C-alpha cells in the first residue's frame, strides 16, 4: 500500500512537474550567452519582499473567503474556528514546523522548502474548490471571484518561491508535489451538507496554511536581515 501511494505520488510528480518547471522558467533568468533576451534580474531582498506581499494578500483573501462561506452556507451551530475532527487538513501530513521553537530550529532552506510544499499542495485543491463552488446554487460572484483570484495568486507565489530558492540557496530543487490524493479521488457525490462541510473545511485549512506561508516567509526575512535576533 505504501509503495502504491509512493508510486502514485511519483506519477503525479512526473505528470505535474514539467508544468511547474515550464511555468517557473520565466522567473528563472539566467544570463545565457546564447539567449537573445535578457531578463531583468531582481535582488534577493526585493524578491523576498514581493513573495511576502503575495503571501500576505493570499492570507487576507482566504480569510475573507472563509468567513463569507461560513456566513452563507454553514449553519450556526456548526461554525467552528478550527477544523472538525472528522475532516483533517490535507496538508496534515506535511512535515511542517508547528511551533516557534521548532521554527527556530530549522534552517532557511527548510523553511523555504516548507513554504514551497505548502504552496504546491494547495494549487490543486483550489482548482477543485473552484469547480465545486460553481455547482453551488446560490454562490455569489464574489465568492467565485475570490476563489479564482486566490488560486491564481497561489501559482504566482509558487513561482516566486522557486525563484527565491534558486537565489538564496542556489539550488534547483526538484519540486515535488504533495497532493492529497483523497481529495481528487473523491468523486462520489456526497450529501449536500457533507460536501458543504467539506468545502468549509477545505477553506479553513487553506486559510491556516496561508498564514503559515506568510509567517515562514516573514521569519525568513528577519533571518536575512538580522540573523541572531530572530526567531
Amino acid at each position, binding site marked *: 500500500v505504501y509503495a502504491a501511494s509512493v508510486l502514485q505520488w511519483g506519477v503525479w510528480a512526473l505528470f505535474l512537474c514539467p508544468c511547474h518547471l515550464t511555468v517557473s522558467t520565466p522567473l528563472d533568468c539566467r544570463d545565457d550567452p546564447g539567449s537573445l533576451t535578457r531578463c531583468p534580474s531582481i535582488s534577493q531582498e526585493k524578491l523576498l519582499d514581493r513573495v511576502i506581499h503575495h503571501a500576505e494578500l493570499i492570507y487576507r483573501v482566504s480569510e475573507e473567503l472563509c468567513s463569507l462561506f461560513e456566513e452563507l452556507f454553514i449553519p450556526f451551530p456548526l461554525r467552528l474556528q478550527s*477544523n472538525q475532527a472528522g475532516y483533517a487538513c490535507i496538508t496534515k501530513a506535511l512535515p511542517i514546523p508547528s511551533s516557534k521553537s521548532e521554527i527556530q530550529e530549522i534552517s532557511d532552506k527548510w523553511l523555504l522548502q516548507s513554504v514551497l510544499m505548502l504552496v504546491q499542495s494547495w494549487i490543486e485543491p483550489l482548482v477543485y474548490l473552484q469547480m465545486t463552488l460553481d455547482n453551488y446554487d446560490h454562490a455569489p460572484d464574489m465568492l467565485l471571484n475570490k476563489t479564482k483570484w486566490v488560486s491564481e495568486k497561489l501559482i504566482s507565489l509558487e513561482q516566486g518561491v522557486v525563484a527565491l530558492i534558486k537565489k538564496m540557496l542556489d539550488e534547483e530543487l526538484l519540486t515535488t508535489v504533495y497532493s492529497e490524493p483523497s481529495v481528487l479521488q473523491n468523486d462520489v457525490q456526497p450529501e449536500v451538507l457533507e460536501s458543504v462541510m467539506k468545502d468549509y473545511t477545505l477553506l479553513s485549512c487553506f486559510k491556516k496554511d496561508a498564514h503559515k506561508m506568510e509567517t515562514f516567509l516573514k521569519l525568513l526575512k528577519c533571518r536575512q536581515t538580522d540573523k541572531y535576533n530572530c526567531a
Partner: protein
Amino acid sequence: MKKAEGVIILWWLLFFTLHAEGTSYSLPGKPTLTNCRSPEKETFTCWWEPGSDGGLPTTYHLYYRKESSDAVHECPDYRTAGKNSCFFNKNDTSIWINYNITVVATNARGSTFSDPVEIDVVYIVKPNPPEKVTANVSWNKSWPSLRVSWDPPQKADTRSGWITLIYELRIKLEGEDKWEEHPAGQQKMYNIYSLQSGGTYLVQVRCRPDHGFWSEWSDSTYFKVPDYFPQERSIWIIIMIFSVFIFLILIWAIHMNSHTLKHHILPPVPGPKIKGFDKQLLKSGKSRDAFSSLVGSDFPPTTTNYEDLLVEYLEVYIPEEQGLMLEEGKDLHDGSLKSKSYTSDSDSGRGSCDSHALLVDKSEEEKEVGQKSNQQGGRTEMDLKRPEESPEENILNYSHANVGSPDVSCEKVKTWPSLFSPLTENSSGPLDQPDSPEMAKQHCLSDSLFPPSPLSSPFAPPGHKEVLGSNYQEYSFGNLHPQTGSHQYLRAHGNMNVANIGHKGVPADLQLPPVRSTEYVEVQKVNNENMVLLYRVSSDVEKGCPGRRHTEEYSRLKGVNNDNGLLLLQRMVSEEEMNICPYEDQESSGLTDSGYTTSTAQKSTAYIPPATQVLDERVAGGYVDTSMFTLPIY
C-alpha cells in the same frame, strides 16, 4: 441483647454520620472553559469556570489532546495564570494545530467533564496593549499637529515577523464622551492635525494581529495643545472683511444717492431772486454792476435829490384811445432799461411797472385805463415806428448804458415781438395792430420803482399771464443813422419811490398817476456792445425840445396778446418828433454796461421770430413810450 444493641447503635451512628455531613454529596458541577487566550502566539492560557462543587472538595484538571495525536496531556501549569486556569508555555504550544481541551472536575463522588473546546492558538491571539504611547505636539507653519507614537507590546514578537500587529488609536478632548478613532495600520506612529487650540486631549492605542482579537486600550496619555492665535485671528479676519464689504456697499449707496441726500441734509439755500439782479455779475466781482440793476429801486437812494425821489412816480396815462400811457419818473439813473419780466415777482421788489402797468387784458386795460387816465387827455402813444425806420427788423438791444454820444450804432436789433410783430409780420388778429412796422418806440421803465404789491392788485387782471419772468431782454438797436437823426429812445421812467407817488399826485390807490412832468431817459446811443446809452432827459418840457413828444410819446398799449406780447398801437411819428432835441442833461445814469439776458424760452409769441425777444419784457419794465422810439430800421 448486647449484639442487638450494638447493631442498633451501629446503624444509628451510621445514620447520624451520614446526616452529620449536612449536604448531600453529589458529583461536582460541570465546569466550563470560558476562554483561552494567547498574548503573543507563543504561549496561551485557558480559564474555566467551575460549577457547583457538589458539597465536596473538588479538584479540577485540564486535559488536552492535540490534533494529530491521541495522546492526552494534562495542563502543565495550573498556577501561573491564577486560579482555575491553565498556562501553556512555549514548549507546549503548537501553532496551527488544534487543541482539544477538556476540564474535569473531580470530587469524592466522582468527576464531571466539561464540554471540549477546540482551539488553534493562532486564532486566539489577543495581544497586550501597545506600550509607551507618547504624544508630541509639533508646529507646522504655525499650525500644530500631533504625533502619537507607541511601541508594540513587549511580548509580541513583531520584529521577526512572527506576529504582525495592526494598530488603532483613538483621541478625544478631555471632558467629551465621543472618541475619534483612527486606524493606523502596521505603523507605530500617527499624525493628527485638526486640533483645538488650548485643548487637552486623551489618546489611546490598541492593536491586534491580523488573525486575532483586539487588545485592550492602552492607558490614556494626556497632552495639551498650546494656544495658537490663528484660530482667533481667522474669525476676526472674517469679521473685518465682512465689515469692509458692508462699508463699501454703504459708500456706494450713498454715492448713488448723494444728490438726494444732499438735498435732505443740506437743503439748498435759495438764491437771491431779485429782479434785475444778476448773480453772475456778483460772482464776477463787479458788484457795482450787480447792484446797479437794483439801483432803480427806491433803495438805496443815490445822488439824486430827495426831491427827485419824491417826485418819482409812475404814471400810467390812458388816453381815450384806451391806451396806456406811462409817465416816467424823474430819476433816470436807475438805468431802468431793464426789461422787466411781466410777472409779478413779489420777491423782486420791483415796481409794478412791468407787472401791472401793462395789462394783459384788453378789457382790463380799458377799464383801468379808463380809471386813471383821462387826466391829460389823449395822449397818444404810438410811436411804434418812425417812417424812416428801416423795414428791417431790428432788435432793440438795450441795457444799462452809460450815457454816451448820441451816436448810436448797433448791429442788431432784436425786435420786440409784441410791439413789432403786429406791425410787421403778421397780425395777431384780435388786436388792433398798428401798421407801423417793426420798431416801436418804447421805453420801459424799470419797474423796480414800484413795489409789486401795491400796484399789482389793481392791475392784475385775472387773465394776467405771468409769462414775463424776471428776465431781461436784450435789445440791440439797429443801425441808427445819425443822419436821420432818428434816435431811438428808450425812455425810462424811474420812479424811485412809490411811496412818494402820492406826493406827486399819484392816486392813493397807486394807480398810475396822471401824466405829470416826466423825465425821460433817452437812449443816446447804442454803442458797439449793443448797449443802450441813456441819458436823462430833462423833464422840463419847455427846456427841452419843443414838442417834446410827451404828448405823443406814448404808445398805447393795445393789449397783451396771448403770448404775452405787448401790443401797442402804432402811432405815426412825425418827422418833428423824430428830431431829437439836443441832448441835455447828459447824465450818467451811473449805469454800467451790462447786458441783460433775456429769457427767450419763456416767451415766444407767434409772431416773434425766434431770435427776438419778447417785447413784453421791455414793455413790462415800464412804460412803453413809443414816441420815444425810433424804429431802428436804418
